[in-house]
């Protein structure tokens, strides 16, 4: 082996070493990027879920505003789907096929546990917005025990962070300003 060959070989070795360093550094960067990618995707899904829930809940509230006695059957998947179809047909909802992005798309709608669920409030007038028509000093659906000082209070928790969509006014008068809470004095 002459001097020229030796120089060529040592250059090859240096090139290999550089390549190795690049691969290692690239691998480390890729490993650091991978979880971030996962986090980004999950965050996108969460934002999308927020947006979808907002749309659906606003559509339900709009429907109830225009037809207070609307009582969809939300006890099962078929009933929920029918309600969403109706809301889409009546243009309260842009599309009926709104999905929960946190559920894998291949599982969505394949069983009850992979479709929207419904939670119904068994109690009534739970935000104390209605008075008793027979006596405006009473609160509809609620009875005062003897020796109880209780009345609605126009100061209530009006906190936008509670709302499912802008201007919902969740603990006040639905989709309007103002509202009330129940104050009990002892």
């Amino acid at each position, binding site marked *: 082996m002459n001097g020229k060959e030796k120089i060529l070989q040592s250059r090859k070795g240096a090139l290999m070493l550089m390549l190795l360093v690049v691969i290692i550094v690239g691998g480390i960067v890729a490993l650091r990027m991978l979880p971030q990618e996962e986090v980004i995707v999950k965050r996108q899904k969460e934002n999308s879920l927020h947006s979808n829930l907002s749309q659906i809940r606003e559509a339900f509230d709009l429907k109830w505003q225009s037809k207070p006695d609307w009582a969809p059957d939300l006890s099962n998947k078929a009933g929920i789907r029918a309600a969403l179809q109706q809301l889409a047909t009546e243009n309260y909802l842009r599309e009926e096929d709104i999905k929960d992005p946190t559920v894998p798309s291949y599982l969505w709608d394949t069983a009850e546990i992979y479709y929207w669920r419904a939670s119904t409030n068994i*109690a009534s007038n739970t935000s104390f917005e209605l008075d008793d028509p027979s006596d405006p000093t009473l609160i509809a659906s609620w009875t005062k025990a003897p020796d109880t000082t209780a009345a609605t209070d126009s100061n209530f928790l009006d906190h936008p962070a509670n709302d499912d969509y802008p201007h919902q006014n969740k603990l006040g008068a639905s989709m309007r300003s103002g509202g009330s809470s129940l104050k009990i004095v002892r």
Partner: protein
Amino acid sequence: MNGKSFGNNSRLLVLVLCLVMLTTVVAMAKKKPKKKTPATTSFNESLVYQEIPLAQFSAPAPDNIYFLSGWVCPGSGSAMLAFVTYSGGGKVKDSAGVEIASSGEVTQIGFADDAGIAFSTRFEHPDFPGEDFRYYRIFAKIPFTAHPSIKEARIILQNTSSTLASCSVWFDGVKLEKAQNEIQEYPTSYHSRGNLLSPEFTETLEGGPSYYEW
């Protein structure tokens, strides 16, 4: 075994013990300790109630779990949210619920399986300037199936403050809902009628409320 490896082993043992203790402390800190009281509270005064038809509670265990929740501001006193059953003649048979003090301390009442705070936020009431009031969304997890000996069931909202000084408490956004399944730990988002929810019970990215609670 030489002295050095014995030293290493004991160091490892101490480390493991420390880790176990740390995990226990963190777990205890996460789950705020609660007092638990029997259903001996008096349900007579400073309260409003709503009767709930017993037909709502026909499901047997394990499908008989309900969540009673509500936004409560105890002011400088204390307030209680309870589910009370009555036998004939208006006699209290049993009760389950949750009581909250102005300090934020929660007391689990009666046959409730669990009770706690789902969320809290500061509240400024214009009639009480400068007071550091908070609204708490408190809840109780209640297993209940109607029985012929039970004639009536009520939701009770009560001001349980001490009678030494006049005190106001506020209630809003009360919800009585059937649990989605046995693993549900918290109430779902409040709505006066009902809500559609995510079927996912996993925690969010930040470890916040699970998707079904949104």
